[in-house]
């Protein structure tokens, strides 16, 4: 694990307390109680099954909950000393300075009308106020940093002329080139195959650490968390049920986390006939009790 210098002493970069997100005027509770911190330069993974509220939590942090009738509440939601609750909630998502986002699908996150180069340069122009040759040089250097060869041609290509992996790299360049303090990556590797996703994660983590950006990764792949995150936040049914260092994942207190870890195939259980599975609904009734138990412990 890479060291994050003095990460534990410093003030949190992002602080989320008692986050609640409701949709359709309170009829749907997507996030019931989420709370965690991200320190400068730290890599935090949010894991959980589909519908556990992990993506919504990120959307709320990024100012991305824009559906009519939705409501974001929290007792604390601050980023870099700024209270995010004062952000105007509108139908149109706005930039939160210092926060950058990376989406699941790189195909639709790029506009097919414009070349990759012009889109990357537009972001550099918007965020770093670069112009002309300096901007172009910076764009090219970012494409090189994300591991793309033949930068000239990539700059002139349109998104549909690139492969999925290349587009994902371009998105990573776009996400990081504005020097964000926090990169929120919502399932950044779900469109890639297993070996590519490890490669992609490695690249993302490595580039983020060179720019000093903290990373908040949403994923349902607990194994990726173990290898790439400093801390893992486990969400279940809209609540954060566990928040612990990644290397202590195997000593998790909460039964859901333990179940998540156990159902990953590994060398230890390779001879098992059946992998353990999680019965989501049956477990739901036990959550409250186990939570109390975990707290006591």
């Amino acid at each position, binding site marked *: *694990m*890479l060291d994050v210098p003095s990460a534990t002493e410093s003030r949190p970069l992002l602080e989320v307390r008692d986050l609640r997100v409701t949709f359709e005027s309170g009829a749907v509770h997507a996030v019931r109680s989420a709370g965690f911190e991200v320190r400068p330069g730290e890599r935090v993974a949010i894991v959980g099954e589909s519908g556990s509220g992990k993506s919504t939590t990120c959307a709320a942090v*990024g100012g*991305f909950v824009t559906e009519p009738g939705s409501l974001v509440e929290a007792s604390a939601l601050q980023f870099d000393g700024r209270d995010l609750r004062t952000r105007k909630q509108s139908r*149109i*998502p*706005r*930039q939160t*300075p210092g*926060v*950058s*986002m990376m*989406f699941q*699908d790189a195909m*639709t*996150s*790029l*506009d*097919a*009308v*414009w070349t990759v180069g012009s889109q990357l340069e*537009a*972001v550099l122009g*918007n*965020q770093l106020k670069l112009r002309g040759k300096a901007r172009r040089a910076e764009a090219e250097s970012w494409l*090189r*940093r*994300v*591991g*793309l*060869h*033949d930068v000239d*041609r*990539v700059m002139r*290509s349109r998104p549909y*002329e*690139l*492969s999925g*992996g*290349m587009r994902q*790299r371009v998105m990573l360049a*776009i996400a990081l080139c*504005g020097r964000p303090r926090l990169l929120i990556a919502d399932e950044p590797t779900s469109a890639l195959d297993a070996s590519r996703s490890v*490669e992609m994660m*490695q*690249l993302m*983590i*490595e580039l983020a650490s060179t720019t000093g950006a903290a990373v908040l990764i949403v994923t349902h792949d607990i194994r990726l968390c173990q*290898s790439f995150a400093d801390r893992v936040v486990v969400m279940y049914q809209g609540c954060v049920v566990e928040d612990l260092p990644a290397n202590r994942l195997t000593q998790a207190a909460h039964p859901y986390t333990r179940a998540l870890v156990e159902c990953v195939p590994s060398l230890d259980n390779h001879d098992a006939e059946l992998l353990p599975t999680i019965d989501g609904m049956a477990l739901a009734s036990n959550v409250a009790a186990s939570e109390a138990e975990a707290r006591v412990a």
Partner: protein
Amino acid sequence: MTLRLAGPAGDAAVAAPAARPRPRWSTYLIFLPAALLAVLAIVGPYITPYDPTRVVGGAAIAPNATYWFGTDSAGMDVFSRTIAAARVDVLIATVVTLGATLGGILIGMFAGMGESHGGLRGLIARGTSRVLDLADAVPLIVIAMVIVAMFGATELSLSIVLTIVLIPGPARLTRAETLRVRGEAYLDAARIGGMRESKLSLRHVLPNAAIPAVENMSVVFGIAVAIAAALGFLGVGIAPPTPEWGSMVSRGTSDLISGRWWSAVFPAVFLGAAIVAVAVAGGAAVRRLRN
């Protein structure tokens, strides 16, 4: 675990796509008819063997070596008039196509972007959409006839009228496309990247939403030529002796009945060929741009 460092060159570098091969020259032949039409429209009036607006010989002479397409019932040279008419018809259709497409794109984008808004803006946007639907229920040629009859037919008035009449098509295309584009993830990605809404509309919504309307331009051109000619045929278009295909066909019809086919058939053939030439070139251009 340890992190492998992907150096500046990158250990997982990915090659860029190969350049597309240049198409063979013969594939450009499909644009030849439209190019000829454009040339004819530009030089047509200068290369006529006779003055297209004067009586140059006897009435209703059959096509021969002197008068290639014969003369009409007034004694004007049909060949001179037919090629001179290309300018009038093509000019009007070009202006109308550009005007209607541009106007339609702007109106359609305004409607598409504003429809879900509250307040006055949303009200106007929704109203615009309904007016566009309503315009579809009225036959184009009737509206055009009424307005031209009121204001008189000159090249300018005809262009304005046809533009207004043809705007709903591209406008509705653009509106529908705008509604689709508004949901695209790259818009949110650009917003998160700090792009302002006005710039976003110009840079991302406009070019994406305008594509169907631009692809449809050759169709609008054909309709414009046809309506301009139809108004000429009905007698409310550009008045003779200014050469115009529609009015030439109209005046030639009475000759046609008595067997003097040339004064109606030649302009009719040019009219049809012009529409087909532009439609074919437009279709080819769209296919080329899509691949």
